[in-house]
């Protein structure tokens, strides 16, 4: 069972309208690199010039914000759910 990544609306043009894509990467940084090979252009939407996750992007592994885990080094394993969510919402 691979890892499912849920793609937010603003990125679905790049994933040809796929809402969920799979990866076999072992951490978040690798998962983003993996997405880039299949959906060119997606990495620069998610990462800033220094290679960090953009300040207006939140990434969750099984509902937990990766900033409470190990950021881009957060490990993922088979069956995990990753969500990429625009930070600008709520309040």
């Amino acid at each position, binding site marked *: 069972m691979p890892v499912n990544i849920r793609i937010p609306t603003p990125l679905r043009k790049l994933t040809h309208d796929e809402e969920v894509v799979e990866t076999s990467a072992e951490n978040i940084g690798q998962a983003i690199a993996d997405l880039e090979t299949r959906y060119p252009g997606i990495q620069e*939407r998610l990462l800033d010039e220094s290679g960090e996750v953009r300040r207006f992007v939140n990434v969750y592994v099984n509902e937990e914000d990766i900033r409470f885990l190990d950021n881009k080094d957060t490990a993922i394993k088979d069956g995990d759910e990753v969500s990429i969510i625009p*930070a600008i919402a709520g*309040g």
Partner: protein
Amino acid sequence: MVEQQGYMKALCCRECGEEYPLEARHVCELCFGPLEVVYDYEAAKSKMTRQTIEQRPQSMWRYAELLPVAGEPTVGREVGFTPLIKADRLAKRLGIRELWIKNDAVNYPTLSFKDRVVSVALSRARELGYEVVACASTGNLANSVAANAASAGLTAFVFIPNDLEKGKVVNSLIYDANVIGIKGHYDEVNRLCAEIAGKHDWAFVNVNMRPYYAEGSKTQGFEIMEQLGWKIPRHTVVPMASGSLLTKIHKSYQEAVKVGLVDEAEYSVHGAQATGCSPISQAFKEGQDFFKPVKPDTIAKSLAIGTPADGFYALKVFKETGAASDDVTDEEIREGIKLLAETEGIFAETAGGVTVGVAKKLIASGAIPADDSAVLCITGNGLKTLDAVENHAGSTREIAPSLREFESLLDSDKELAAATQ
């Protein structure tokens, strides 16, 4: 080129400037930055004079040219124009020359500032053809979406953390809205709503409708300026959850200058948080330009957002306006609620206690000089958060319906007073 609608020109990314049509979307596809409504300020300026505004009905819609609705508002036409109170007794207690309270605890219809943002969001949602409206809420927003949707005949889904104050839960249920309690804190509710909004084509007021919704908060600032006799207050203290209200009050001051309603002036917009959920004020105190997310733990549940969407922009406002930010403990929040009630007769919810408590600290520290003037933004009503203060407000003293018993009660009070002198 995006087609102009009313005074709205387009949605525009605050970060990279990319333009988008005026539809239900909130995030830039290129950089994930927030989208904001751009107005035709020249056209607005020609219609918005002090005289024309003063002749309009006393509601937030008297500033309609700078609100993101293309036609006439259809939801919440009576919202706003809440009292601005000169708070002399509280001023004395806080040690400041002049103090004003903007009292949205009596906003119509659901007793919080959220009616401002919701009337804009739902009016705009109708223009865009939506029949289902929804929100992620810490309580007040849920109340307002539920009530305003009911009066407009819209279907509402409101999502709240499952541990909210009873008053806020009942206040949503009564309007027959779909109230969904999420087993988690607000940030989890918010994440879930972002995902639901990606699946269901509903008008989520603070997700895909957020660029419109958030603009409603400006009316609190417009009203403050008009009620002060068309001037920008030197200091404003605003409670912060996402930080949106604070950034929009700042924006209202800038826009009022732009359209010629007030003269340019020096001003500071200060931010108030609860210590148990203070990512923005912590970042300010550490001199950071971005916050670290936190897990909230505070009685100020309406402010319990650990990942504040506008935290970054709130920090910018402090820098730009020479303002400060601070936070107060649960105990100080209760003291703030009681102080406001005892001095001004206003019963605010926990966020009000935060605002009063932080104002006290900022005045004491000199961030707000004692010889200056300040406005405190009170955003919600204490009757909704009775749980937070019910064991701290004292208790009734019971006697038989007997004059003798009452006289002896007064006598014992006198003896007590004499003994403690």
